[in-house]
């Protein structure tokens, strides 16, 4: 049995920041990551981030990952990193079980735990959606930005949220033609500055359109879209056909919550946070007192807020086990203030509503 003060599940933006913050508070941290690299989705993000200086605004995601890994290195005496390790279960006695390198099983007993498992992509149901060439946006980013492989030559992007818009832009930077971006909603969901920079490259954006079907024998050859009326019903005769070898589906994320569900903490379906999320207090502590959460696993939002949530959860989980940072109150107030800043605009109205519903005071 491995004993540690604080275990953190997930080495993405929230988990990395939680580890740094907890180590700064004096906690001994075990950071568990199922992949062989840390950084989560940050390593695929070649665009500059929004936010303010405290959330590394104007720095590219991949460089933010480097900044966080350097900070992690500064605290290497307090942080043990366990990669290639998948957490399998959380039990009522506080023991977590994990598997390393696909065959080594282990038990870990932390005094406190932060679940920062992120989110998974939603997919879309339409005929032939299993044809080769139809990808989730995360897979396209992994191919292009991690492995340097073009996913194809002509792309239909499905989804005009920030991820769909950003990945479209990155595809064009990689020399891939984006034929169009479509979205079932009547308005573009992502930031308009992202939409405008793709539109001025000549890529049309079709709002109120969805995929009717994919066509191809061995792989995707054609994508047919059709228009939705005000009740989101498809309009026959409105079909448009695109000769594409790639369809990139970017229709949102949903929290990866299985471990939290298993741990017995109270969960609730909150549509504004994109799924079933843990109830938590302002310290990001769930209803199981030693379990905290941060990032998309407690509500799908931007990476900027995931990082701040991680810093806050690391600070508060450390305090929970008796490692109070000398500037605990100041730091906590600052993190809460940063989150309020990121969430106070019109684009974050749904987040404000969702956060309110998930708060247990």
């Amino acid at each position: 049995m491995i004993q540690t003060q604080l275990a953190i599940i997930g080495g993405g933006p929230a988990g990395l920041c939680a580890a740094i913050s907890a180590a700064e508070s004096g906690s001994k941290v075990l950071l568990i990551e199922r992949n062989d690299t840390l950084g989560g989705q940050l390593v695929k993000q070649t665009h500059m981030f929004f936010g303010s200086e405290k959330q590394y605004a104007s720095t590219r995601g991949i460089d933010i990952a480097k900044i966080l890994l350097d900070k992690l290195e500064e605290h290497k005496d307090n942080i043990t990193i366990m990669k290639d390790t998948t957490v399998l279960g959380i039990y009522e006695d506080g023991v977590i079980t994990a598997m390393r390198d696909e065959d080594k099983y282990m038990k870990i007993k932390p005094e406190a735990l932060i679940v920062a498992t992120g989110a998974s992509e939603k997919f879309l149901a339409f005929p032939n959606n299993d044809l080769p060439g139809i990808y989730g946006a995360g897979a396209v980013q992994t191919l292009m930005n991690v492995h340097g492989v073009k996913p194809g030559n002509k792309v239909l992007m499905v989804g005009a949220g920030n991820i769909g818009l950003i990945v479209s832009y990155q595809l064009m930077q990689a020399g891939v033609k984006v034929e169009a971006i479509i979205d079932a909603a009547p308005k573009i969901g992502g930031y308009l500055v992202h939409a405008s920079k793709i539109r001025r490259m000549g890529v049309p954006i079709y709002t109120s359109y969805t995929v009717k079907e994919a066509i191809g024998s061995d792989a995707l050859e054609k994508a047919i879209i059709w228009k939705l009326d005000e009740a989101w019903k498809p309009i026959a005769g409105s079909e448009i056909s695109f000769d594409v070898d790639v369809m990139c589906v970017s229709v949102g994320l949903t929290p990866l919550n299985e471990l939290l569900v298993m741990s017995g903490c109270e969960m609730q379906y909150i549509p504004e946070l994109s799924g079933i999320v843990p109830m938590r207090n302002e310290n990001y502590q769930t209803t199981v007192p030693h379990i905290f959460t941060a990032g998309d696993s407690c509500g799908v939002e931007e990476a900027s807020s995931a990082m701040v949530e991680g810093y806050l959860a690391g600070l508060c989980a450390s305090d929970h086990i008796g490692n109070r940072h000398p500037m605990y109150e100041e730091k906590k107030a600052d993190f809460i203030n940063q989150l309020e800043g990121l969430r106070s605009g019109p684009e974050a109205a749904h987040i404000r509503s969702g956060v309110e519903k998930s708060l247990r005071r």
Partner: protein
Amino acid sequence: MIEKTGIPSREQVMDVFPDVERINKGPVAVIECYKEIPCNPCTTSCKFNAIYIGDDINKRPDLSEEKCIGCGVCLSKCPGLAIMVVDGSKSSETVDITIPYEFLPLPKPGEIVDGLDRSGAFIAKVKIIKVLNPKSYDRTPLVTASVDRKYLYDFRNIRLEETL
């Protein structure tokens, strides 16, 4: 409308453009940040305190046309690539417009390329005047094109032969 197409209306563009008198005096930024988002690197990167957002980082940036010298630093810092610099002091026929351009290959000074509007449609051939890509711009190069004045409010992008 921009929420459906990504293309700002002429009214929106005119609303954020400095007047021609200011443009004719020398380079000045044009900030096309049409919707409130939580973001403020334009203001923190400006050495001349010419861009104001304030404590609420969701507010739209407010440019002081008097303080702005059109240095272009904010162009490379804006995550939305929403800023350009216009300079009408060089000629009565043309205006120099500087845009952020994150594609390869980069154009070369002297090259004639396609000038595009905010929908990506071709408007006119334009001549590249300057290409800056120092390390401090962090892989967001700035390209300056000389554009016929009648396209002052239309030009927003370039297209090279080699690119798609």
